């Protein structure tokens, strides 16, 4: 499998605090990679570094063989990496449709084309009936879907999903799951941060575990499930094998 995203020795410091220390792993094209770890482990920080909100203090990130670390977020998006935010950020005073049209303009040549892309994406994520509602009036489940729709409208090759399942009820979770599978079906690579173990274990092909800013494990869901370091990180003490 071709490597799409490569993270090499990435560290990120804030003053004296090391939020990330020497993180290295690769994401293969078309893969779904799960990123897990206890709260505060640095998962969202890693997304922020990949996305371009922070430059890595040390190390490098390459996408499709080209260095992207240090580029601003809009450049990273233009190169093909889209992201959603853990605390959703709808463009509140715009309608659902307008939210997605705004993202679609990245690849569209004119407004008509942007609207076309937007409509397609709204159908894809099941939001077509809500297209004219103001996004600030949407319930949480739909807001999370709107985040995904916006990210998809930028025509990415890779999408970073930050806790898309948090706060969703079981029905919404199933819907979200099927959307993610559809995204994978389109050939888009996915890296997903999640706390719902069931979700992560069932959809990820590979899992990377962070704790206190360091990578403590990497492997298949089966391997991770039985890894004593991972269990210790979550439960706080060594569990008998």
């Amino acid at each position: 499998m071709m490597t799409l995203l490569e993270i090499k020795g990435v560290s990120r410091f804030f003053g004296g605090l090391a939020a990330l220390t020497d993180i290295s792993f690769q994401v293969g094209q078309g893969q779904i990679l799960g990123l897990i770890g206890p709260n505060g482990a640095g998962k969202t920080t890693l997304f922020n570094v990949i996305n371009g909100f922070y430059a890595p203090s040390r190390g490098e990130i390459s996408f499709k063989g080209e260095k992207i670390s240090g580029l601003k977020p809009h450049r990273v998006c233009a190169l093909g990496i889209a992201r959603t935010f853990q605390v959703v950020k709808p463009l509140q005073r715009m309608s659902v449709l307008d939210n997605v049209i705004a993202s679609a303009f990245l690849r569209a040549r004119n407004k008509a084309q942007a609207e076309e892309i937007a409509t397609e994406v709204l159908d894809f994520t099941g939001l077509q009936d809500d297209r004219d509602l103001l996004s600030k009036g949407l319930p949480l489940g739909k807001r999370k879907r709107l985040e995904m729709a916006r990210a998809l409208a930028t025509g990415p090759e890779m999408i970073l999903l930050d806790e898309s399942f948090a706060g969703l009820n079981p029905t919404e979770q199933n819907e979200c799951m099927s959307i993610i599978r559809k995204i994978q079906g389109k050939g888009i690579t996915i890296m997903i941060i999640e706390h719902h173990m069931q979700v992560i274990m069932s959809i990820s092909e590979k899992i990377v575990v962070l704790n206190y800013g360091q990578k403590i494990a990497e492997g298949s869901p089966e391997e991770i499930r039985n890894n004593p370091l991972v269990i210790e990180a979550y439960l706080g003490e060594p569990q008998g094998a």
Partner: protein
Amino acid sequence: MKKILPLILIAALALSPFLGINTYLLHVLIIAVMWTVIGMAWNLLGGYCGQVSFGHAAFFGVGAYTSGILYSKLGLSAWWGLPLSVIVVTLFALVIGYICLRLRGPYFALGTLAMGVILRVSAENLTGLTEGNLGIMIRERTWVDKTWYLYIILVLAVLTYLLLKKVIESKLGYYFVAIREDQDAAESLGIDTTYYKTIALCLSAILTGLAGAFYTNYMGYIDPKVVFALHDISIVTIMVVMVGGVATFWGPVIGAAIMVIMAEAIRSIPKLGAAHHTFFGVLLIVIIIFLPNGIVGDIPKLKRWFGIGKNP
């Protein structure tokens, strides 16, 4: 009906010199139309793009002085200031943007406020260029009759309106509002926020500068305290848009009309003359608390208060 209303308004304004209104009222009309230009310009940057500038006097003044200096130093007709101000104001806007656009929210407001004051102080001190506090006086007035001035500013206002409409309904408009609503989200969606904020700033600045250049030609006299004024230009600009309606097309028009009429009304009452800043201050406070989105922006609210509109 809605589409015809603006045309009727423009026609009425255009015919007004022939309807027998006196010169004073004509003057008020001209100033009101000028303020709609400035208001619409500010609205593009502030209302739609979310960057609240407290220093638009900077651009007004630069436009005004471009006209003035062309006349006083180069002996050219001050009207050349209009086309030339576009270039000069853009340069200033790029510098001001470079310094201020990296600042978020209220800090941008403060930064632009400082810019306006810096330009005023500079204009006062660089007497070799600007004649300092003596100001620049244009001795040969192009027309004695105000009619042509009205038409020029009316054309400018209509062009501004059309330009704004086109921009807001295009990709630029979407990007501006996205930046206003959530700058970080916008960045992640591939929007180069610095670049687009700069465009908004430059467009806004150019239109304001044109109004300034017009002002020099119309009034025939400018000085730093007038054209770079914090309260009487920068703050009034904000008031025009806030009273009328932020991020609406018609807001600045209504706001300009109200502000100018109010100013003239207060000035004409002898006892209250000096108190017009108090009135402005109070109006500002009232609008902010009760109608934060302005008259046009808060029409639903107004309807509720006056009991008009559908009852649920």
